[in-house]
C-alpha cells in the first residue's frame, strides 16, 4: 500500500550503465526460475486448460477447442461478462469519486473529523470483503436485518432489497472506497501545494483550480487507481456470490466458480475460458492506460515544497464531515454492530435471549480451532513469504546489472492480469500438472503456496517504492568505510528495508487471512480457513454462527492492528529519544499511523 504505487504499467527500466557487468548471478537465475514457476506458470496453465478435455494431471485428456467455443457461444457467458463490466464499472466510478473527495478533504482542508478517515480506511481495508458481503446480507435480510427493520419502522415499507444490483454495487463501493482512498492519499499529500497557489494567483477560483490544475496533475495516479479498482472489481467473487447469485445475477467470477464447483462433472474448459475472458479484459485495460499516459509520471516535478496551510472552505466543510460520518456508519459501525449483535442471537433475527451460546458452539465445533490455526499459519507465513519474494524481486530489478533483472518483476506484473478466483483456477491447473506438487492437493500447504503467489504483487508494490528511495550511495559509503559486500547489504540495505518489509508483511498477512477466493477452490473440508468456514456456515443457514466466527477473526485482526500501532508508537518514541527532531523540520503533511506510506 505504498503511496503512489498504483500504476499498473510495468515500471520504467533503469538507465544502463555502460560497460557494467551483464552476467546474471546464480541468485538471479534462481529467482528467475522461481518467478517463472510461481507466477507465469499458473497463467500459462489457465490458457492450456481452456483447450483440454480434462484437467491437467488427470490423464485421458486431449486437445479440443470445443469447450472454448461452446462457452463463448453461450449467451449466458456474455450476460455474465456484461454484468461484470456493469458491476465493476459503476463501483469504480462511485468509489473513485468518493475516494478523491475524501483524500482531498484529508490532505488539503480543515474539515472536522478528517483525522479519523485514515484509521477508518485502514480498518475497512483490513476487514475482508467476505465480511462486508456477509454483514450486509444480514443487515438487509428481510424481514429481520437491522437496516431492514429500521426502514420498516421509519417508512412502514422496506424498499431495500440487498440481494440486488443496488446491494452489490453499494457494498462493493464501501470496500473499494477505503482501498482507493489509501492509494490516493499519498499522491494528494505529495502534490506540490504551490500548483494550486499558482493557479489562484493567476486568477482562477478554488473550484476551477481543483478541476483544472490539481485533478489533472493527479490524473496518472487517479487513473492508475481506477484501473486497479476495475481489475479487482472484475475479479471480485464474494459480494456477487452472496448478494448477486440469490437474485439470479451472475458475473464472471461467480460463473467460473459455478462451472468449477457446482456443476458435476466440473466444466474445466468452460471455467478456464471464462477466466481467459477476464484476463483479456485486464490486458486491454493496461493497454489503454499505457496509451493514455505514455510514460508520463507527473509526481516527479514537485519542487521545494513550502509550508501548507489547510484550506478553510467555510460551511462546505460540514458536508465533508457528514460524508465521513455516513461513510463510517455504513462501512464500519452498521456492519460491525450487526455482526456483534447477530453473533449473540440464539437464532438470526431473534433479538431476545442474547447469549454467548454461538461462541461456545463455534469454539467447540471440531473444525473451528483447526480453521483458526490454519488461518494464523497461512497469514503469518504467506505474508512473510510474499514480502520476502517482493523484496528479492525489487532488489534484483533495482540493483542487478544483468539483462535478466527485469524478468522476475515482469512475472509478478503478469499476476495483476489474473484477479481473484482466476488465479486460484490457474494455480490448481499448475499444481495438478506437476507430479510432486499434486500430492499437496487439498492440504494446507497448497493453500499457503497459493496465498504467497496471490499476495506477492501486493508485497512487491509495497516494498518497491521504499527500496527505490534507498540511495545506492548508502551501501557504497559502507563499502568505502571498510564493510564487506555482505556486511553492507545486511547491515545497511536490509536494515533500511526492514520497515517497509514489516509493513508489507502486515498487509499481506491481513489480506491472506481474509481471502476466500483461494481456499474456496484449493482447501478441503479438513483444512479450511476461517473465511471458508464462515462462508460454509452462512450457506448452511447458520448465520448467527457465521457471525460469531467472523467476530472472532475480526477480534484477532483488530488486536494485531492495535499491537502494530503500539509497536510503531513505541519505536517512534525510542527513535525520538535517540535523535531529537525539531517538529518544524518534519516533512509537511505527514500522516501518522498510515501503514505503508513510503517516506
Amino acid at each position: 500500500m505504498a503511496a503512489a504505487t498504483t500504476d499498473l504499467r510495468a515500471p520504467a527500466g533503469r538507465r544502463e550503465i555502460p560497460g557494467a557487468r551483464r552476467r546474471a548471478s546464480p541468485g538471479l537465475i534462481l529467482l528467475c526460475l522461481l518467478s517463472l514457476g510461481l507466477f507465469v506458470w499458473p497463467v500459462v496453465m489457465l490458457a492450456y486448460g481452456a483447450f483440454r478435455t480434462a484437467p491437467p494431471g488427470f490423464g485421458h485428456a486431449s486437445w479440443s477447442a470445443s469447450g472454448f467455443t461452446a462457452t463463448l457461444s453461450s449467451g449466458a457467458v456474455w450476460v455474465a461478462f456484461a454484468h461484470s463490466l456493469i458491476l465493476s464499472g459503476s463501483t469504480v466510478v462511485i468509489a473513485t469519486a468518493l475516494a478523491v473527495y475524501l483524500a482531498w478533504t484529508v490532505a488539503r482542508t480543515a474539515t472536522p473529523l478528517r483525522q479519523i478517515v485514515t484509521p477508518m480506511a485502514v480498518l475497512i481495508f483490513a476487514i475482508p470483503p467476505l465480511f462486508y458481503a456477509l454483514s450486509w446480507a444480514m443487515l438487509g435480510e428481510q424481514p429481520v436485518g437491522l437496516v431492514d427493520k429500521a426502514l420498516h419502522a421509519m417508512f412502514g415499507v422496506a424498499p431495500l432489497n440487498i440481494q440486488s444490483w443496488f446491494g452489490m454495487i453499494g457494498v462493493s463501493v464501501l470496500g473499494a472506497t477505503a482501498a482507493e482512498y489509501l492509494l490516493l492519499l499519498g499522491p494528494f499529500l505529495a502534490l506540490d501545494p504551490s500548483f494550486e497557489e499558482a493557479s489562484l494567483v493567476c486568477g482562477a477560483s478554488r473550484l476551477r483550480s481543483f478541476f483544472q490544475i490539481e485533478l489533472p496533475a493527479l490524473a496518472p495516479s487517479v487513473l492508475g487507481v481506477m484501473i486497479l479498482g476495475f481489475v479487482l472489481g472484475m475479479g471480485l467473487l464474494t459480494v456477487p456470490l452472496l448478494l448477486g447469485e440469490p437474485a439470479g445475477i451472475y458475473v464472471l467470477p461467480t460463473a467460473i466458480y459455478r462451472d468449477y464447483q457446482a456443476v458435476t462433472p466440473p466444466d474445466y474448459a468452460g471455467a478456464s475460458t471464462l477466466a481467459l475472458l477476464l484476463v483479456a479484459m485486464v490486458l486491454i485495460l493496461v493497454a489503454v492506460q499505457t496509451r493514455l499516459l505514455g510514460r508520463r509520471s507527473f509526481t516527479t516535478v514537485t519542487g521545494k515544497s513550502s509550508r501548507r496551510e489547510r484550506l478553510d472552505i467555510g460551511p462546505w466543510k460540514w458536508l465533508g464531515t457528514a460524508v465521513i460520518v455516513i461513510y463510517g456508519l455504513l462501512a464500519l459501525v452498521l456492519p460491525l454492530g450487526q455482526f456483534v449483535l447477530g453473533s449473540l442471537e440464539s437464532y438470526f433475527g431473534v433479538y431476545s435471549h442474547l447469549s454467548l451460546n454461538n461462541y461456545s458452539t463455534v469454539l467447540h465445533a471440531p473444525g473451528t480451532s483447526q480453521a483458526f490455526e490454519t488461518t494464523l499459519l497461512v497469514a503469518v507465513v504467506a505474508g512473510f513469504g510474499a514480502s520476502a519474494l517482493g523484496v528479492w524481486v525489487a532488489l534484483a530489478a533495482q540493483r542487478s546489472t544483468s539483462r535478466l533483472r527485469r524478468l522476475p518483476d515482469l512475472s509478478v506484473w503478469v499476476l495483476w492480469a489474473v484477479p481473484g478466483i482466476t488465479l486460484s483456477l490457474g494455480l490448481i491447473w499448475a499444481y495438478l500438472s506437476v507430479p510432486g506438487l499434486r500430492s499437496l492437493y487439498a492440504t494446507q500447504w497448497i493453500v499457503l503456496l497459493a496465498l504467497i503467489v496471490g499476495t506477492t504483487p501486493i508485497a512487491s508494490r509495497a516494498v518497491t517504492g521504499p527500496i527505490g528511495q534507498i540511495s545506492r550511495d548508502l551501501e557504497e559509503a559502507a563499502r568505502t568505510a571498510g564493510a564487506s559486500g555482505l556486511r553492507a547489504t545486511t547491515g545497511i540495505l536490509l536494515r533500511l528495508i526492514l520497515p517497509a518489509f514489516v509493513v508489507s508483511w502486515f498487509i499481506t498477512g491481513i489480506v491472506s487471512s481474509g481471502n476466500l477466493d483461494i481456499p474456496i477452490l484449493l482447501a478441503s473440508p479438513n483444512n479450511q480457513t476461517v473465511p471458508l468456514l464462515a462462508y460454509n456456515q452462512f450457506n448452511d443457514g447458520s448465520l448467527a454462527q457465521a457471525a460469531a466466527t467472523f467476530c472472532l477473526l475480526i477480534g484477532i485482526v483488530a488486536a494485531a492492528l492495535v499491537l502494530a500501532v503500539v509497536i510503531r508508537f513505541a519505536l517512534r518514541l525510542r527513535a525520538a529519544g535517540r535523535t531529537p527532531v525539531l517538529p518544524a523540520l518534519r516533512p509537511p503533511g505527514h500522516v501518522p499511523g498510515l501503514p505503508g506510506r513510503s517516506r
Partner: protein
Amino acid sequence: MSAVELVGLRKSYADVTVLDDFSLRANQGELVTLLGPSGCGKTTTLRCIAGLERAERGEIRIGERLVACPERRVFLPANRRDIGMVFQSYALWPHMTVFANVAYPLRVRRRDRRERQREVMEILAMVDMDTYAQRPVTELSGGQQQRVALARAMVARPAVLLFDEPLSNLDAKLRREMRREIRDAHDKSGGTSIYVTHDQEEAIALSDRVVVIRGGKIQQTGTPKEIYTKPATRFVADFIGFENLLTATVTEARDGSTAVKLRSGAGPVWTSKGITRAPGTEVVLAARADDLKIGSPVEAPPAAIPAVIRSRTYAGGRVEYVAEVGGTPVVVRAPEAEAAGGLLDAGSDAWVLFPDDAAVLVDDDAERPPQPAGPAVEPVAVREAT
C-alpha cells in the same frame, strides 16, 4: 496606480509570531526586495500580499484597493487581487505544455483565442522561450522552467509582480543571468514588484529599494547603495557581508567625524560614516576586508595598529589574511600585487590600518538570538518517487 502598502501586519503560526506590527510601502513602478535569513518572515509577508495567507491584524492595500483587513473583515482571495507570482518551485503545472501554462491566466480572464495566442507568444519571445511553446514543461531545464514561470506571472499584465526566492534553485552563473532578465522584465512591465530573497548580492544587484528583515521586524530600508555602504545595525552589517564587526568605544566626535578605540585599546580609528554617539558610548566598528590595509612592520603608517598574522589564504587575485589585533581576529584582503615587502607569513608581526572613512559605526543589536548551526537552509521536502 498600484503601490503596495502594508500597515501594522501581524501573523503567527500556533505560538510563534512571525510578523508583528509590520509596515511597508512599495511605490508604483518600484522593485522592492525583502532580504533576510530563513524564517525571518519575508516569505510570509509576500504570501500575505498574494492572499495565500491571512494575517491576523493590519491592512494590505494594492493601489487604491483594500485587499485585506481582518479588523474590517475584508479579505480578497488571491484570484481576485490581480497579481502575478513566481514561486520558488516554479509551480509549473506538469500536465500542461509551456504554452498552456502561460496561457492559463488569460484563459481564466476570458481573453479570446486569437488575443491569447498573440500575447502568449509575445511574452514567450520576451523570455526567449517561444520555440519551446509546445513542449511539456517536464522536459525543461531549471533555467527554462524559470523563464516560463516568469512569463506566466507577467502575461496578464498584473498590477503587482511577486517573486518568492525564484533563483534559489539555479546555479551561480544562471542566477546572475536570470537576475538581469527579471530586472528587465520588471522595467518593461512598469508595475510594482516585490522580491523575496536571502541572497544579499541578489538584493543589491536587483532592487530599487532593499528592506532587511529579521525576526519579523524591519531592520533597515534603503537603496542598495545605502544598505551596502551604511548598514544601520550590527545584524545588517553582518548579513550584508561586513567581515569585521569589532566592539569599540567612542573617544572623540568633531565635524561629523567620530573617533573610536578598539577593545584592546588600539586606535583611534576615524570615520564619518554611520551613527554618531557621545564619547564613552560602546558601538560596533564594521569594516569590509577589502577596505582595510595590511603591511609588514618596517613601513608602518602613523595610524597603523600592530597585529600578528594568523593565516594567509589565496583568494583569486587577492590575498586574504586573518590578523590578530589585541586578541580579536581581523580579516583583511589585499591585492596580490600590492603586498608591500612580499607576502606576510603566518606568525609574523604586521600592522593593520583602518583608513579614514573605511569603516562604519553601527549600533550593537539589542538582543542577539543564537545563530543556528550550519548554513541557514530551508527544509526541503522529500521527493516522492513513482
